[in-house]
């Protein structure tokens, strides 16, 4: 058994000290944090991946510390599917920030390093094609550096680079679900090469939120993945609660679970309906939206909003539920299984649907882990990794539900996993509705001006798309020092290129639809 599997922090530190004498390691909020010098970073990462089985690069980001004249590059590793985690921090001199690329070790390091390069200006020698990813070529400076200021040249338009290309799919295309662009080179209708271009809706959220008070941040998180606002709320408030040591009332936890699982169903309904449209079925989306409206009615009862909820608060919830909610919810739960059968009749068994999606865009489990893929996309590839089970948060360990997996990892199974997950969510909702106390507070006492103690924290939730993570650095002031959003879609999109090589134009749409990506979450 590897030391990591023991989950004993002391044993882990000892094993690490044995392998790398003199390496500093500490425990923060239950997570092992290793401080590696730049020269040793790659060896440490390699050791953690090979010897401890931390096979997924969950996130890679940086924090700027001008007064220390350094950048901290933060690698967050996870083991999939038996969850374990560790963080490797590398301190780089601000004058010459350089660190060997990890793109050979994890496939998604490619895009993540490009992001750190783009926003912080850290160089990664050995990266195959280090260039900007969220901002455009010629953007002045690196916006997440603390000393960066909005420059006048920003108003200049986006400069098109001269490139050999055949066709642009997006940014304005009916099937890009948001604003993306694929530069596609075609031979007839066969895709020879595909290059996803992102950043069209980059709003500099991480920068913006460094200047917002902790309480003010919640509505902004709604807008990352606008189809799953509840989950964004939860990832953020969980991180702050952990950082500030705030206890959430039990009743609020139950209601959070109810809100999230309703939201999961609503999000999957959009995914399935829109997927139908992508492959040319006009009807399913109108059926799925009919039920989505019913969920939105329930959401409106909870918080008054139908899509961007801002329902969660640090320490609980914004509002208590109205009595009528407890009548409407069971009615919905009773009706829904029949409705899901209806969608399945329209799509699941249809010969053409099978022909279009089976064996199309196959993603193997190993490949998925390597690309940082999480959520239904990973589970469809046969990896039973669900944060609700792997690293139980909130009340999820108390509920009985199944982690739905597929076998082949093709577009069809990605669709099917979503359908079956809706049924599992219904199970959770039933249990939660039964167990939720009818009386009691939904919000803990939290100071109006919150100043969490200096420190760092990472909290993650299982959103309908995968692992949504919030990494916060506090320096004890009323705003976060660094706000980092780990978005599943960003990693999922980076895998597309390999999935569609050699496929047809129609497959591009069928595969892209099946990985269910939200543009606002990719670009942030």
């Amino acid at each position, binding site marked *: 058994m590897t030391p990591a599997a023991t989950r004993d922090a002391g044993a882990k530190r000892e094993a690490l000290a044995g392998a790398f004498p003199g390496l500093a390691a500490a425990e923060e909020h239950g997570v092992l944090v290793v401080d590696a010098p730049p020269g040793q970073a790659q060896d440490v990462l390699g050791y953690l991946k090979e010897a401890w089985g931390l096979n997924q690069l969950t996130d890679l980001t940086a924090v700027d510390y001008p007064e220390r004249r350094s950048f901290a590059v933060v690698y967050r590793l996870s083991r999939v599917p038996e969850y374990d985690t560790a963080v490797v921090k590398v301190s780089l001199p601000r004058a010459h920030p350089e660190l060997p690329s990890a793109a050979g070790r994890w496939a998604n390091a490619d895009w993540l390093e490009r992001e750190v390069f783009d926003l912080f200006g850290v160089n990664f020698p050995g990266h195959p094609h280090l260039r900007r990813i969220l901002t455009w070529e010629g953007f002045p400076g690196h916006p997440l550096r603390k000393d960066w200021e909005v420059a006048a040249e920003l108003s200049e338009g986006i400069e*098109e680079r*001269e*490139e*050999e*290309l*055949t*066709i*642009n*799919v*997006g*940014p*304005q*295309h009916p099937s*890009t679900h948001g604003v993306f*662009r694929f530069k596609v080179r075609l*031979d*007839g*209708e*066969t895709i020879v090469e595909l290059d996803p271009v992102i950043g069209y809706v980059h709003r500099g959220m991480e920068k913006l939120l460094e200047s917002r008070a902790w309480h003010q941040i919640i509505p902004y998180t709604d807008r990352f993945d606008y189809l799953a606002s509840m989950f964004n709320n939860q990832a953020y408030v969980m991180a702050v609660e952990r950082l500030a040591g705030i206890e959430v009332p039990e009743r609020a936890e139950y209601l959070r679970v109810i809100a999230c699982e309703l939201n999961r169903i609503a999000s999957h309904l959009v995914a399935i309906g829109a997927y139908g449209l992508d492959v040319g079925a006009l009807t399913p989306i109108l059926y799925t939206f009919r039920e989505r409206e019913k969920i939105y009615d329930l959401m409106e009862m909870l918080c008054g909003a139908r899509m961007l909820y801002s329902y969660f608060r640090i320490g609980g919830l914004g509002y208590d539920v109205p009595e009528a909610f407890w009548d409407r919810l069971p009615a919905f739960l009773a009706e829904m299984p029949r409705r899901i059968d209806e969608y399945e009749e329209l799509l699941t068994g249809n010969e053409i649907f099978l022909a279009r999606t089976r064996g199309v865009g196959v993603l193997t489990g190993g490949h998925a882990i390597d690309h940082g893929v999480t959520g239904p996309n990973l589970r469809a590839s046969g990896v039973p990794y669900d944060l609700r089970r792997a690293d139980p948060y909130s009340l999820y360990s108390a509920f009985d539900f199944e982690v739905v997996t597929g076998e082949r990892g093709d577009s069809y199974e990605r669709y099917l996993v979503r359908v079956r997950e809706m049924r599992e969510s219904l199970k959770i909702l039933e249990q939660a509705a039964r167990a939720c106390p009818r009386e009691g507070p939904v919000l803990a006492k939290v100071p109006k001006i919150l100043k969490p103690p200096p420190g760092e924290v990472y909290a993650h939730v299982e959103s309908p798309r995968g692992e949504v993570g919030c990494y916060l650095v506090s320096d004890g002031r009323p705003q976060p020092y660094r706000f980092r959003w780990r978005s599943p879609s960003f990693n999922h999109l980076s895998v597309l290129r390999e999935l569609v090589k050699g496929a047809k134009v129609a497959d591009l749409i069928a595969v892209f639809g099946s990985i269910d990506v939200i543009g606002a979450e990719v670009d942030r």
Partner: protein
Amino acid sequence: MTPDAVAYVRLGVFMFWTVLFTLAALVMARLLRRNRPNPVKLSTYESGLVTRGETWVRFKTSYYLYALAFVIFDLETLFLYPWAVAFRRLGGFAAWEALLFVVTLLLGLGYAWREGALEWK
């Protein structure tokens, strides 16, 4: 004035009016519609970006394979039409002859299939 001649004249008249009908629709639209072109409006659509690279490329050859197969089969199918009209008046010999013809067609199809001409790449 044979019935056939009348039929073809009537067909010609119908064609004439059909063309006139469509032209009338277009002319009427021209009189009614606004017309304010500008360079952006007249640019080619490509998902909101300026198109790059050649559009009128030499297209993939597998399309031509289908076209060739089509020409061959379609011509042969046409030969079957007179036979079909007269089939019931013809004797058994004609039936066997046509069967031979169809079998030949099937063989050709089988050949094209085996050679991969029907695989669209």
